[in-house]
């Protein structure tokens, strides 16, 4: 029990520490910002740029619109929830695609040499540049009555960032199967498919788990950036942009939206941690710090 509780306690302590540092700097830092060696790198500490922690928390419960209605927190939470569902779809698609690619590449040596460089190159394309392109293609897609929904472009971009670490991790994992075990499967006249399912995939699990962590984070970043880039309404990405424009009049709003984005990332991390625990049960583990 205490082992489960520890990360929670650590998290709370860390948050508290951040708040203390924030208020501490705000108390002693220069009001108008400062220069070190001629560079203006010390942030200003006025309430505009660095609102008090308590006014941030208080601001969460102000109505989001001047006319009243839902509070900022409610709006941010529902935005985060919207983005989270998209990120989850992106993550699932990215993981499935990444694993499928890894299986194909592990099966055909030649394919690995031919395809892997392209996968690496694909990851160097900036997401910001890719997002409008994907949204543009999606907008033209229409099969019968079915029209490509705009959120799927964001999901696809999340998948785009998620699949790469999963593909690379899975590929390495599939190849990590113990030669003695492989020979055993051969001696039992097991088919390639059977060997994949009973030996190669389970051997790959310790490699897949950390890849999922990277993939989960990638999916969240991909979706949030895509929302901003293609102007998708309803998600947290859009709220961050919207609220930062209102920063002069309501400076605390933007912080609430950043918390929302952080919460989104944390939830994804928690889900991946759950998958980790599920897959790695009954496995020998070095004590993880």
């Amino acid at each position, binding site marked *: 029990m205490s082992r489960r509780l520890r990360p929670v306690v650590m998290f709370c302590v860390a948050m508290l520490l951040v708040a203390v540092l924030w208020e501490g700097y705000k108390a002693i830092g220069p009001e108008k910002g400062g220069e070190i060696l001629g560079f203006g790198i010390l942030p200003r500490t006025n309430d505009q740029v660095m609102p008090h922690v308590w006014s941030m928390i208080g601001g969460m419960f102000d109505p989001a619109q001047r006319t009243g209605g839902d509070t900022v927190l409610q709006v941010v939470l529902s935005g985060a929830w919207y983005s989270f569902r998209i990120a989850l779809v992106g993550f699932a698609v990215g993981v499935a695609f990444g694993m499928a690619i890894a299986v194909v590449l592990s099966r055909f040596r030649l394919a690995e040499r031919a395809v892997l460089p392209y996968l690496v190159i694909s990851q160097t394309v900036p997401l910001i540049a890719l997002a409008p392109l994907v949204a543009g293609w999606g907008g033209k897609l229409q099969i019968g009555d079915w029209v490509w929904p705009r959120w799927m472009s964001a999901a696809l971009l999340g998948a785009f960032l998620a699949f790469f670490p999963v593909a690379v991790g899975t590929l390495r994992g599939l190849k990590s199967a113990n030669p003695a*075990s492989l*020979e055993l499967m051969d001696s039992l*006249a097991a088919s390639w498919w059977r060997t994949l399912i009973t030996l190669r995939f389970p051997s790959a699990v310790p490699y897949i788990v950390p890849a999922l962590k990277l993939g989960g984070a990638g999916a969240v970043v991909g979706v949030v950036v895509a929302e901003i880039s293609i102007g998708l309404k309803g998600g947290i990405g859009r709220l961050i942009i919207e609220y930062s424009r209102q920063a002069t009049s309501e400076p605390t709003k933007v912080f609430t939206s950043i918390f929302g984005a952080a919460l989104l990332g944390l939830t994804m991390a928690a889900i991946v941690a759950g998958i980790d625990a599920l897959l790695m049960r009954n*496995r020998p583990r070095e004590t993880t710090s």
Partner: protein
Amino acid sequence: MTNQVAAVHAVEIAGLNKIFNAGKSSAVEALVDVDLRIAPGEFVSLIGPSGCGKSTLLRLIANLLEPSSGTVLVNGKPAATARQDQDYGMAFQQSGLFEWRSVVRNIELPLELKGWDKAKRRARALEMLELVKLGDFASHMPWQLSGGMQQRVAIARALAAHPPLLLMDEPFGALDEMTREHMQSELLQICARTSTTVVFVTHSIPEAVYLSNRVVVMSPRPGRITEIIDVDLGGERDEGTREDSAFYGRITAVREALRGVEMTGGARGIEDR
């Protein structure tokens, strides 16, 4: 019926050659002109200096390698057919257990691939666990067992489908002397009870003599059989056998055969224990 079974050899190797990387400058003549017949129920050990082709010979019998020329018959069938029919079980120096499967599920693996149903599989696996005296460890994970226990699980797995032939490549290499002797006795008992034929690779002369009906002595570069030594110790083998003068006599015979190998090829890696 009995006559017919006796007529079929458990393993029949004729004119066998194996050249790795044939045609290239890195070509290795791993085996040259190997002929060997092994009767059902016989225990045969392969011994010889490192690199003389013992593992290669075992893998050829298992059809994990293709011969360059010559034939390998297992139970009168081509080796490839025998592999498809799971006519042999295999155990290596590394146990090759699946760490994500419990002990009992590791033993079930060959039966799973044979398409046995779950209840039958479980019953047989538990029976095999009793045989290797690990009945209490069915639901343990392999990494919770000692090296010797893991090796016993690997042997139970090799025996699970009751294959008529057992191929073992230095299975006790990683064990301490006491465990090793204990495992040797257990292996002999199990094989006698299940009337399994065994081809056993080892580096240890006493181990080969203690276990075998015949010891096949091999020499390297090129790998071939130089001598086959009969080991008739008369009656059951038990711990007393190890102090027997006949036992020592046979050890000396194998050692001399290996010394002959040393003159010609240079023996390395033979343990005199």
